[in-house]
């Protein structure tokens, strides 16, 4: 429970500063400081248990399928890191109280910093690897917000994005790596993973897993070449840099490497991946730091170099390398944070961080100078300082490398890097506090930093001194247990007395110190050379890469998605032909067992006409009317085919649909240009012809193969049950209204929706130009011929009578609601054509939408009627009745359903027609029809 509290207290505490962000800074600092301090003291209270070698585990199931659980673990390593995180956090919060004095943004800062503390604690105290990853990504996100804290500056925005992309991207790789690791170990629980080292290292997936995990760790811990984000993260306020980018977040990668050390480390691959990376990072960071004029820039590169150093140590694999790594990690946190605080104070005091201008500050802030001297000396590794010991430990370990090539390279390399680090440490101290007088500072004379603001700095400096003077004590009480946890065995205590007498490390230290001092003395010519080199800004490179990537993506997208419907359709058809044809590649039995029926002249003639008419549509498609006529011929001959092959219902339906379709299409086409331009080129023509030809032949072949094969189909059931079950002798109609009435309900809905869609689309549509154009055209000179209107009026009652007849007999003979509806619609359409829209509107029922909706409702409610009798939706019933005069007749519930169909068909057709027609009239737009 205490473990959960350690983590949750900062999370809960994060709300207070956010909610009370208008409070004075000191109170916000108090709000933020208390939770941090509480976590810190909780950790201290657990120290005895941890020192005794206990591993506290607290677990609560979350997602068992994933193996992800809320699992916390406190052992030596976790304790060391957690204590650093909360301890440093408390000091940073105290320090920030002065940094944010008088700024309105402090509430946001405190909130985020506690959130960040929560995330970091989560990483170091997780027992479950996936759970750890949750916090890992959270640190990237909070860090993004903190780097972009001053979002009005472009540098901050870019720095934030760059760090997010690099660390977040690393997190994605880490996810992959940890998933693999978990599968190899059989669990994500650390206690099991740490014991499965043998199995993991023997697994064939080990190299992949290791690369992914290390990429995750390297990106987070700013290892070369991913170090680029760290210097740009310095756009963040100084407390953020001091906390995230020196003491905590960047150590997360190193923590991971230490944490998983027993499970994945100390193989040849590990050495080959980690050591060169660490060495490169160490050198690049140390070298570039020397040339940074910005105090924070120098500190950032120095941090990179130290991160490289620790990574190098973790990679070496010598017996005490891990001890040295963790010891140095503690030292680094202790000396780097005060230096950052100093940078922040100098920045606020002088308004600048440029070391070429800030000089000789000892006159103005002697206390700060004294307090900075200690950490700077520790960073340089001067004798008696903490850094001296840890650097010497590095030298000792570097001499123990056993891999042939590296035996000499590593010691020389680290000595050289030590030399640079001495140089930049001297520089930061000497340049800021001595080196002449300040040069045109924005704030001159510099303001006096508050004494109390220096308290956290003083405490950390004290820490540096303690470690320097009593290394064995600190090591035994704090570091040793972490080393044991990280190496998975009991590591013997580090012999600091032997360290002080070791010969070679001493010599290497002396070389580094003298060399570093000389290098610093030679700085001016070196700076001159450096300033002549082209300036490389990683942010700009990053932006350039992103811009390139975006431009590339845009080009690709525009190439593919070019807005050409023809091309999209061609792609679809090619895919269809390709896939469908692929399945038939080895198919040779096109002719099935059923023999072909004899060919007669009628069929051949009909088929030829259909083919020719279809070709005609293609040939004439530039001129709308002939194309439409050809299409009509197609439809007519399909109708005849239906009639010829004894499907009178289909023939009737097809005929009436054909009529209405042609009328509506004529109306619609009149809005389009009468001729479409010739824009096909020969290649396109060939493409289209090929694709269409193959598709047509394919469909023909498929139909042939299918139709010549016998099949037992459900149609026998329909034939047998139409009368006894559906009460109708017209099987087609019984299928429509009974067996598959649900389909019909759906289809009339489609029709209704289409009509409503036309209404909705044309309601607010204005085609003024088009209307004027139509009025000018000569063929509308006599829009409503007298003969037509007279005939139309005569036809109307007859047509209505016919449709009523067709409707009523539909259940037993060809007919039904659908056909009847179309006939009624055709008759009414004739009135529109003959009399004109306005004329017809005045004389006719115009409530088309209620007709549509009512039809669907009627069909639906009829279907629901079956519920009353305990039958499923759309169950029909019928009975035979007899009346005087009329005689015996049948009433079926399906008739009501069919009436719904009828109403919807009439309503839909006329709604479409009337609204398309409305567009033609000058007065039309604006007035709702139907």
């Amino acid at each position, binding site marked *: 429970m205490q473990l959960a509290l350690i983590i949750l207290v900062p999370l809960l505490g994060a709300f207070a500063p956010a909610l009370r962000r208008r409070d004075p800074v000191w109170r916000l600092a108090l709000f933020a400081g208390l939770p941090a301090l509480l976590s810190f003291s909780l950790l201290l209270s657990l120290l005895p248990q941890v020192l005794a070698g206990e591993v506290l585990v607290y677990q609560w199931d979350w997602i068992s399928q994933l193996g992800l659980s809320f699992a916390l673990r406190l052992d030596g390593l976790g304790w060391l890191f957690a204590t650093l995180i909360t301890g440093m956090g408390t000091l940073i919060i105290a320090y920030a109280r002065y940094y944010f004095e008088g700024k309105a943004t402090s509430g946001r800062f405190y909130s985020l910093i506690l959130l960040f503390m929560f995330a970091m604690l989560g990483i170091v105290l997780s027992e479950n690897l996936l759970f750890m990853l949750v916090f890992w990504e959270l640190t990237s996100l909070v860090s993004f917000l903190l780097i972009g804290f001053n979002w009005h500056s472009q540098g901050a925005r870019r720095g934030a994005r760059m760090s997010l992309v690099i660390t977040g991207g690393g997190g994605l790789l880490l996810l992959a790596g940890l998933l693999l690791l978990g599968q190899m170990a059989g669990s994500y629980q650390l206690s099991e993973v740490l014991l499965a080292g043998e199995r993991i290292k023997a697994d064939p997936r080990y190299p992949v897993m290791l690369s992914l995990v290390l990429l995750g760790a390297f990106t987070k811990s700013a290892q070369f070449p991913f170090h680029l984000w760290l210097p740009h993260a310095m756009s963040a306020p100084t407390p953020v840099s001091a906390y995230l980018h020196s003491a905590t977040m960047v150590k997360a990668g190193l923590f991971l490497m230490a944490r998983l050390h027993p499970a994945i480390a100390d193989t040849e691959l590990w050495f080959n991946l980690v050591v060169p990376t660490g060495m490169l990072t160490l050198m690049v960071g140390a070298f570039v730091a020397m040339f940074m004029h910005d105090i924070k820039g120098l500190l950032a590169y120095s941090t990179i170099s130290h991160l490289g150093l620790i990574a190098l140590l973790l990679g070496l694999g010598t017996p005490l390398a891990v001890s040295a790594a963790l010891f140095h990690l503690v030292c680094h946190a202790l000396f780097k944070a005060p230096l950052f605080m100093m940078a922040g104070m100098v920045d606020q005091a002088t308004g600048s961080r440029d070391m070429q201008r800030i000089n000789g500050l000892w006159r103005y802030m002697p206390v700060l100078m004294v307090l900075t001297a200690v950490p700077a000396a520790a960073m340089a590794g001067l004798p008696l300082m903490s850094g001296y010991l840890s650097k010497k430990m590095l030298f000792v370990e570097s001499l123990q490398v056993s891999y042939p090539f590296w035996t000499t390279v590593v010691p020389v390399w680290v000595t050289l890097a030590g030399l640079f680090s001495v140089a930049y440490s001297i520089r930061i101290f000497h340049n800021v506090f001595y080196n002449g007088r300040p040069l045109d500072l924005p704030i001159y004379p510099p303001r006096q930093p508050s004494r109390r603001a220096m308290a956290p700095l003083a405490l950390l400096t004290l820490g540096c001194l303690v470690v320097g003077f009593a290394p064995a004590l600190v090591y035994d009480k704090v570091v040793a247990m972490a080393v044991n946890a990280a190496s998975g065995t009991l590591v013997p205590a580090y012999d600091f007395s032997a360290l002080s007498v070791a010969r070679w490390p001493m010599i290497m230290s002396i070389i580094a110190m003298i060399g570093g001092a000389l290098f610093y003395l030679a700085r001016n010519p070196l700076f001159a050379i450096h300033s002549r080199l082209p300036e490389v800004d990683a942010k700009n490179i990053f932006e350039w890469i992103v811009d390139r990537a975006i431009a590339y993506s845009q080009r690709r997208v525009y190439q593919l998605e070019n807005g050409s419907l023809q091309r999209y359709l061609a792609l679809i058809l090619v895919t269809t032909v390709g896939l469908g044809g692929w399945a038939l590649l080895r198919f040779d039995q096109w002719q099935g067992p059923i023999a072909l029926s004899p060919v007669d002249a009628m069929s051949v003639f009909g088929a030829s006409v259909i083919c020719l008419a279809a070709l005609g549509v293609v040939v004439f498609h530039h001129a709308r009317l002939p194309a439409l006529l050809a299409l009509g011929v197609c439809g007519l001959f399909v109708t005849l085919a239906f009639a010829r092959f004894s499907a009178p219902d289909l023939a009737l339906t097809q005929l009436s649909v054909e009529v209405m379709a042609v009328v509506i299409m004529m109306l619609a086409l009149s809005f389009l240009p009468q001729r479409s331009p010739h824009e096909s080129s020969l290649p396109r023509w060939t493409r289209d012809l090929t694709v269409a030809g193959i598709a047509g032949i394919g469909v023909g072949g498929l139909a042939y193969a299918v139709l010549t094969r016998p099949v037992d189909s459900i149609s026998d059931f329909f034939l047998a049950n139409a009368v006894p079950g559906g009460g109708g002798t017209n099987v087609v109609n019984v299928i429509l209204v009974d067996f598959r009435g649900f*389909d019909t309900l759906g289809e009339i809905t489609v029709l209704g*929706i289409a009509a*409503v869609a036309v209404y909705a689309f044309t309601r607010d549509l204005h085609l003024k130009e088009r209307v004027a154009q139509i009025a000018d055209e000569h063929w509308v000179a006599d829009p409503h011929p007298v003969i037509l209107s007279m005939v139309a009026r005569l036809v109307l009652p007859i047509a209505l009578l016919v449709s009523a007849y067709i409707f009523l007999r539909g259940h037993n003979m060809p007919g039904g609601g659908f056909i009847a509806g179309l006939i009624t619609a055709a008759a009414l359409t004739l009135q529109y054509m003959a009399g004109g829209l306005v004329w017809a509107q005045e004389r006719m029922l115009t409530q088309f939408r209620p007709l549509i909706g009512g039809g*669907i409702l009627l069909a*639906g409610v009829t279907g629901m009627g079956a519920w009353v009798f305990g039958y499923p939706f759309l169950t029909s019933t019928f009975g035979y009745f007899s009346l005087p005069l009329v005689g015996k007749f049948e009433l079926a519930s399906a008739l009501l359903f069919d009436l719904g169909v009828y109403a919807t068909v009439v309503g839909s057709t006329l709604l479409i027609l009337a609204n398309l027609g409305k567009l033609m009239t000058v007065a039309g737009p604006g007035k709702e029809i139907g």
Partner: protein
Amino acid sequence: MSHWLILPVLLPLLCGALLITWYQASMNVQRLLSILSCLGLTLLGIYAVAQSGQGGYTLYYLGNWEAPYGITLVLDRLSALMLLVTAGLSLCCVLYACRTADRRGAHFHPLFQFQLAGINGAFLTGDMFNLFVFFEILLIASYALLLHGGGRARSRAGLHYVIINLVGSALFILAVGTLYGLTGTLNMADMARIIAESPEEKQPLITSAGLLLLVVFGIKAAVLPLLFWLPRAYSAATAPVAALFAIMTKVGIYAIIRVFLLVFGAGDDPIFPWVWVWLWPLALVTLVLGGIGVLGSASLRTMTAYLVIISVGVLLAAITLPGEETLAATLFYLIHSTILAAVFFLIADLVGRQREEGYDRFYITSPVGYRWLLGGLFFIAAIGMVGLPPFSGFISKAWLLQSAAGAPGGVLLWGGMIGASFLVLMAVSRAGSGWFWKPEPIAAPLWPLDKVCFSIVAVMLALSLSLAIWANPVMGYLLDAAAQLRDPNGYIEAVLGGLSAGGVL
């Protein structure tokens, strides 16, 4: 007997019909009816999930005609899940529309209800031809909704949308006709049974018809060479419509799962592996295109459209991998990606309306009102979209990667998903920083932020979070659903079992 299974189709259908009939009803009445219908659908969805969670299948024989002769509705865990997701999404969308877009054209609400009827019907039906009918309903309704609000961009995108989808319909009917000619039945379970028993010489024909169906569903689901209708259509649609369309590609994916694992999945030597041979590479290429498109988009709506394409790529690629757990993880990802895509479409509108100029375009720097609230919302949504913890994106991604690890080709899926996440991370961080950090602060917002709309998006994100927090029961349900899907015989027996009982229930 219980009739509730027809209600997910009938309720919105009749609601839509009523709204058309009573077209003079005031906007408030229309809204009330529409919201009530969506609320009812949500309750039905919850009931359906509870019902199917007990195991087994719920059947409904329409017209009291036994399978395979009549049309049968079949509810299994997958269809129940889809019903619930659709209903929840529709409730959010309709509430959002009531605050914004439903006045911008005629008959928003009835069209919306018809659309829902079509989608729900497609999820419930156990009949091939009936599936075609419902595809028609949802196609024509979605076309009408796409045009809602009018304007050049919508008409243009709508034309491509409807023509391409009509070609799809034509292919659909061709494929169903072929299958009917070969099997003599339309009921999916019956067809599956007959295909499993059909002689060797018919196999190529059946496979060919199956691949035609893949093209049909591929158009709906938006897989690579068939997806070009999607980006413009989705980015042109009104916000709540686009958000509802987040489920539309999933209808295609549902159909692929249903038809290929059931109809082409029974027997000792099922046909679906022949289909997967094609689907797998196409899905991976779709994933890559989606990633590229996300990076290259000029507006949030276009970006979201490509995010949808990424999710389609992931889903379809994962479907082809063997194993129950992968399928379950795929379904989890399906829920997650639907919610997040809808959220992004709504956020594009929410933010766009508060920007002084440029609406949701990235290349215009414009002051934005309510920078903190909207920025925070965008930040959280972006976390969910990239798949960072603790939202459902992370859980679904981790599960999918985990379950796909051992599968052949799993490496490609891993690479594709992680690469796509990375590109999305780049794109959204750039978008967010350009929208909320770059511009000068605004003196006063253009108009007050719509609290209801904001809360809807917040609730949807909370859903995504709770999906992650309470993932355990969801995963259990999905594993059972996947087990059900991998066992087509259970479905066939359940549906055709009524045959021996004489049909009447």
